[in-house]
């Protein structure tokens, strides 16, 4: 179990690093495009499609699981201040167990969509013919990793609840010192 958690964490870190690079590339491309358009009347014909079709999805799906494991997703945790650690772990178990099927279905149906698009050689017309499957495939990649993370976390919470070792910590309370370190973006 610990080895599996480590592999998932490594995969999450790798994808998040790629997303960070893509974020930098987005900044550079869009800013340069503005200069090329207004300074030289020669905008990039490809940047709009590249950013809106591919980069937005890379940014989201490559950080999805990492954001969950880093407890970065916004949650309403007011009830958590009034219950025991054991109850909080039960909440975490329910949360993981109910979320996993949603992301598993998304992974399955978007994967099928990507496979179909690949088989049909679907493209988006434009200055460059963008293959549809390439951006569709980003969704199953990110959601499959998140599904795996949710299932493994659910198992780890169940192990801890049944008296076994605490393989993963409980999410920090948003207003605790640890929670405020990574405060949300409001």
């Amino acid at each position, binding site marked *: 179990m610990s080895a599996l958690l480590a592999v998932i964490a490594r995969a999450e870190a790798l994808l*998040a690093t790629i997303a960070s690079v893509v974020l930098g590339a987005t900044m550079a491309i869009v800013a340069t495009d503005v200069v090329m358009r207004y300074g030289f009347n020669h905008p990039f014909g490809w940047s709009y499609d590249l950013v809106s079709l591919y980069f937005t999805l890379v940014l989201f799906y490559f950080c999805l699981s990492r954001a969950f494991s880093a407890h970065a997703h916004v949650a309403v945790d007011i009830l958590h201040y009034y219950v025991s650690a054991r109850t909080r772990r039960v909440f975490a178990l329910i949360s993981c167990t109910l979320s996993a099927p949603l992301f598993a279905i998304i992974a399955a149906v978007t994967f099928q969509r990507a496979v179909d698009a690949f088989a049909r050689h679907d493209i988006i017309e434009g200055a460059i013919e963008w293959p549809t499957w390439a951006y569709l495939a980003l969704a199953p990649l990110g959601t499959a990793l998140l599904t795996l993370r949710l299932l493994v976390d659910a198992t780890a919470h169940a192990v801890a609840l049944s008296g076994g070792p605490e393989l993963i910590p409980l999410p920090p309370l948003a207003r605790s010192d640890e929670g405020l370190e990574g405060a949300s*973006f409001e």
Partner: protein
Amino acid sequence: MMVLMVIAALFALLAIGMPVGFAMGVSGAMGLLIGFGPNVLVGVLETTPISALNSYELITIPMFLLMAEMVLLSGIADDLFKTAAAWFGRIPGGLGIATTLAGAGFGAICGTSTASAATLSATSLPSMIKQGYEPRMAAGVVAISGTLAMLLPTSVALIIFALLAEVNVAKLLMSGIIPAMIVTLTIIATILFLVWQDPARAPAAPAVPFREKLRLLWGVGPMVVLFAIVTGAIFTGIATPTEASAVGAFGGFVLAVLKARPSLGQLQHSFERAAIGSCMIAMILMGASIFGYFFTLSHVTQDLVAWVGALHVSRWVIIVIILAMYIVLGSFMDQVAILVLTVPIVLPLIKSLGFDPIWFGVVKIVTAEVGMITPPIGLNCFIVARYSNRPVVEVFRGTMPHFVAHLFAIAIMVAFPAIVLWLPSLVHK
């Protein structure tokens, strides 16, 4: 009945601490499955995870988050308070006023309230305490000044509202400027009132030589230029908000590299924080989109609009009830959660009552500012307490006068919508 069941499930999932985006996705999918069958559910889940995110405008959020990260990394935010303090510190309550102006200045280039509150806590609060300010008052000023970031053109909250409400992002970003000025003046007026009540609360700081004042002013020049470029480009229509945000992020990156000379690891950390923050917001938008399909197919909003229309109650009474509800919700829910949960339901109602959605967006964000300082969960108060090592109860007490003053500011904006709508009416399309 089914709608009530799904809404109850949503609130139950939120209560156990499931991430907001996940909870909306799970309960929305459950509603689609029970109410409309597996084919509809699969159809929605096949398209929404792509269509909800394939938007060029969505890039505005990671770009503004990145800009905020870069500005924080550069450390120039510290200079902002020093400069304002040099110019205003001599008058009683001057450091408090300087904190407010620094909050407005920082908010103009960093659109997140929490980052603003954390930065002000580290810079202005120790100076005020050292100067002999009443700690409660000083902490309150810092917590409330941080919220100004939610109203100014790089505001992430305003962009989320624009995406949810499908209103023009450029106009919405511009519409917050005059209300932000009103809120700034409200905070300053509250400080002056508190000092008038008891001058010992906020003693004047020593004078700063004029030459030093000018030197400090020169130091914050790059921030003013960055703000002018981003806001000017959006206002004049030279660039779209997305393009302006990317230029702003790039400007922030250059500032960070020149001023702080960060290591590659520091840069990577900042980029990753911005990427993860963007993912968090996109997840909420995707969950809201799935839940939105359920609401649309169930005709919930149409039924609600028809029901309210049949009430024969003044629209002003309804808007006051809605805003009061927002203030109450803000006392136990995070602002992003409130936005995504309520805007899809409330906005059609607002439109049917003849109110402008841009005006409503700004007024909603001002109520969100209040929520950021309202006990028991006002996040800014916790951040100020955490970064300044002050008890959180003290910070909450310090924000109470500002809470009351903000209600007056909201009343002014509700009574005179032109305050909000005049500037966006000048924005070039």
